[in-house]
């Protein structure tokens, strides 16, 4: 009697052992670079620059000096503020433009809305490398070169198409009856959007905000090409371009700087990754 569950249990344990054994190499490949960054950031220099002893652990006590160096002796603090401010502006612009567009495409039965939606989404795929040279001229014409405002202008070209597409899918899932009921009660189209559709779409809108944030953090090209002054750069460009002086790499502080931005963004993005995949594959996996 007691044998059957036990063998089943054994089988389960064996199965798990196999799966963990098979998946461990992938996990190591995926997170080893992050572990290496972390330990580099926390090591003292005499401990860091030697290869004759086991390098994956501390031989001298860990130190925070690489982190404090960033805030006291570099523009790191300014870059983080820049990045946050840029992301906030991009999120606001994206919402103001993508929410109405997504709603119009999903709900207002505009002729050809299907094709329009696809066209907007396709612009997400026009790579920056084709656009950055003419955009450099646009940025210069508007007098925005050399401030981070240039990025507030160009990042929405990435986020608007994606978020419009995402919100379009989202608005389609809101039941139509609610709006119709509101209109019967004397609400205009705008009133129905404002009072009925938006409140129930908060999760979708929040997702769009997160993407406005994470997608603009994934950029490197625009930041590199449009913003030259050291204190105006976003953190993802400032760290690799400004913290390296000539040929000297201060790896400890570089890794500290990379980790402090990288990890929070990676974790945040992680929670919304499924929405991203759903977005680009058109919700097939829902």
């Amino acid at each position: 009697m007691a044998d059957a569950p036990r063998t089943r249990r054994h089988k389960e344990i064996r199965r798990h052992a196999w799966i963990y054994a098979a998946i461990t190499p992938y996990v190591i490949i995926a997170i080893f670079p992050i572990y290496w960054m972390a330990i580099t950031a926390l090591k003292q220099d005499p401990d860091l620059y030697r290869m004759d002893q086991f390098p994956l652990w501390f031989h001298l006590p860990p130190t925070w000096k690489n982190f404090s160096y960033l805030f006291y002796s570099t523009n790191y603090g300014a870059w983080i503020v820049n990045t946050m401010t840029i992301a906030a502006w991009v999120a606001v612009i994206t919402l103001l433009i993508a929410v109405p567009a997504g709603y119009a495409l999903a709900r207002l039965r505009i002729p050809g809305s299907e094709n329009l939606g696809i066209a907007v989404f396709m612009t997400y795929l026009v790579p920056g490398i084709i656009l950055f040279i003419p955009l450099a001229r646009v940025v210069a014409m508007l007098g925005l070169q050399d401030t981070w405002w240039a990025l507030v202008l160009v990042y929405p070209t990435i986020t608007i198409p994606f978020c419009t597409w995402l919100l379009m899918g989202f608005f389609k899932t809101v039941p139509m009856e609610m709006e119709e009921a509101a209109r019967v009660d004397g609400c205009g189209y705008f009133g129905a959007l404002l009072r009925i559709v938006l409140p129930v779409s908060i999760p979708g809108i929040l997702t769009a905000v997160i993407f406005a944030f994470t997608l603009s953090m994934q950029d490197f090209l625009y930041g590199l090409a449009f913003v030259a002054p050291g204190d105006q750069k976003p953190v993802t460009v400032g760290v690799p371009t400004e913290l390296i002086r000539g040929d000297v790499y201060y790896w400890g502080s570089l890794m500290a700087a990379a980790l402090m931005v990288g990890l929070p963004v990676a974790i945040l993005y992680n929670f919304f990754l499924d929405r991203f995949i759903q977005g680009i594959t058109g919700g097939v996996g829902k």
Partner: protein
Amino acid sequence: MTASSSSSGPDAAGARAAAVSIAVRARPRRWFASQTSRRLAFGYLLLAPAVLYVLLLVGAPFLFSLFLALSDASVADNTASFVGLENFRAAFESDVFYIALRNSIGFTLVAAVFKGLLGTSLAFLLLQPFWGRKFIRGLVVIPFTLPISISVLGWKWMYDSQFSVINWFLSQIGAIGSYGSADWPVWLGEPHLALAACIMVNVWRNFPFSAIVLLAGFTSVPNEILDAARVDGTSFFQRFRHVVVPMIAPILLIGFLFDTVFTLSDLGVVYLLTQGGPANATKILPVLAYQVGIQAGALGRGAAIALFLFPLLLPLMILMLRNLKRREY
């Protein structure tokens, strides 16, 4: 689906009204007509900012880049004159351009093979139910979620000429000599190794994406269909080849196209690791376009080089477009 079924609502009602009585026909139709035009006006009003933004900052710059590519525009002087296909001719006549084109294509193909292999095997593993699967999945996708310039910096340190932790591993398992011996490879300093190193970073960064897209595909195949095929006595590979693959083909294609577009046009990895060196071994089109267009200030030349990516990307985009249009709502 909701949109199309409800869009027939007013018309159907109108038709019914018309069938019932001809006398009341005119009035409801006018009411619907004005309702429709109000709705459409509102719709276009809401859509206008997005369309304008995209036209002004994607459409216009794209056309502008066509113009730049046909001109001798440079950062130095503001007057640009038309030079015809001169920039394209110059590109075709330079060896660096061919090297960059070849590297771009080779980079993308080789990286795609590895991403496909790693991604597929990982997706099969993550498809199994096991304890802690969500957590493991969260760990494995970190490379994809990390901002690109940040993770490339980490790799640059792992490829360091003296203190490469990769070399330390290799020497631990005996593949190369101990620290200080002459056979420690300088990853970013030797032409073939440098290109391999760049490809490795791209694979590391994007294989989780392949896995997650595949996983989304696999889980979208209804179990009933697989069970039906199993009842019919098919083997695992038959089911995979004839049931799963055709069903997830659209999602696979979109994932693949996405990854290819972003790999082909990515500047970050190579720019931060090697700047295209040593001796142009890792020069790819985006890096060349950046160096010529922005660093050397020859906007026209740079735009022409960047535009060479377009014929490479265009077929992919068209495939994607057809795929999206076929998808059901």
